[in-house]
C-alpha cells in the first residue's frame, strides 16, 4: 500500500506503508492494504503510519481529506508536519507555527510600508480633491 501526503506546496510523504491510522469525525480508524476503498474527512490530530520495516511514523496534520483507492492512500491537507518521534512532535508543530507567524508579520509590515509610501507620493504630487 502506498501513502501520499499532499500539501499545497509539496508532497510530504510518498512511500510504501503497511498500515495507516487516522482520526475522522466519528473516531479513529485503521487502514490495511486489503481494506475496501475509503473516503473520509480527517480531524486535526496525529496520523500514524507503519512502514515496511515495521517502524511507526507520526504526522501532525491540520484536518484534510483521506482517500483510499486500491493500494493508493492519499491524504490532502493544508498543514502537515512529520515528527521524528512522539515526544518531539508538539515542539515541531509549535516551531512551525511560530515561523508562519513571523512570516505573516513580515508581510504585513511590508504591505503597510508600501501603502504609506504610495500615500506619501500622492501627497508629494499635491493631489487634491478637485481632480
Amino acid at each position: 500500500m502506498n501513502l501520499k501526503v499532499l500539501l499545497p506546496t509539496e508532497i510530504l510523504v510518498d512511500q510504501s506503508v503497511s498500515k495507516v491510522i487516522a482520526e475522522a469525525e466519528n473516531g479513529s480508524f485503521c487502514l490495511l492494504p486489503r481494506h475496501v476503498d475509503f473516503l473520509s474527512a480527517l480531524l486535526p490530530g496525529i496520523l500514524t503510519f507503519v512502514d515496511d520495516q515495521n517502524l511507526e511514523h507520526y504526522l501532525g496534520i491540520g484536518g484534510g481529506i483521506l482517500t483510499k483507492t486500491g493500494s493508493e492512500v492519499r491524504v490532502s491537507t493544508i498543514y502537515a508536519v512529520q515528527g521524528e518521534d512522539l515526544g518531539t512532535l508538539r515542539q515541531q508543530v509549535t516551531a512551525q507555527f511560530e515561523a508562519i507567524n513571523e512570516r505573516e508579520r513580515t508581510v504585513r509590515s511590508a504591505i503597510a510600508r508600501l501603502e504609506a509610501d504610495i500615500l506619501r507620493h500622492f501627497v508629494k504630487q499635491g493631489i487634491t480633491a478637485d481632480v
Partner: protein
Amino acid sequence: MSELPPEQENGSEMPGKQGHPLHLHNRSQIEKRIASQEARKLKAREEKHHTIWFGLGMFGLIGWSVAIPAVIGALGGMWIDSRWPSRYSWSLMLLIGGITLGCFNAWKWLHKEGNVDR
C-alpha cells in the same frame, strides 16, 4: 439554483471554521489537538509495559496474600500440635483460619484498587 439570498446560503458554515484553515484561532486548535493526542499516545505506550508488570504484581500479591497466612497457620498449628497435643487439630484450624484471613485480605485489597474507575 436555490432561491435563497446569499447571506443565508453561506450561513450554513460552522462557527470556528470561517476563513483560512490556518488562521491563528484554528492554528491553536490544531496545536492543542495534536498535543493532547501525543500525550495520550505516549501514555498508552508507557501503560503497555506498565500493565504487564502491574498485572503480574497484582496476581503475585493476591496469590501470596492467600498463601502466606495459610502456610504460617499450618506450620504454627503443627508446632502447637507437637507441643501440646489436644482433642482439636490446631493445624487444621489455623490452616483454615489462615486461608480465610488471606482471602479477606485479598478481597479488601482488590476492593481498594477496583475503585480507580469509579
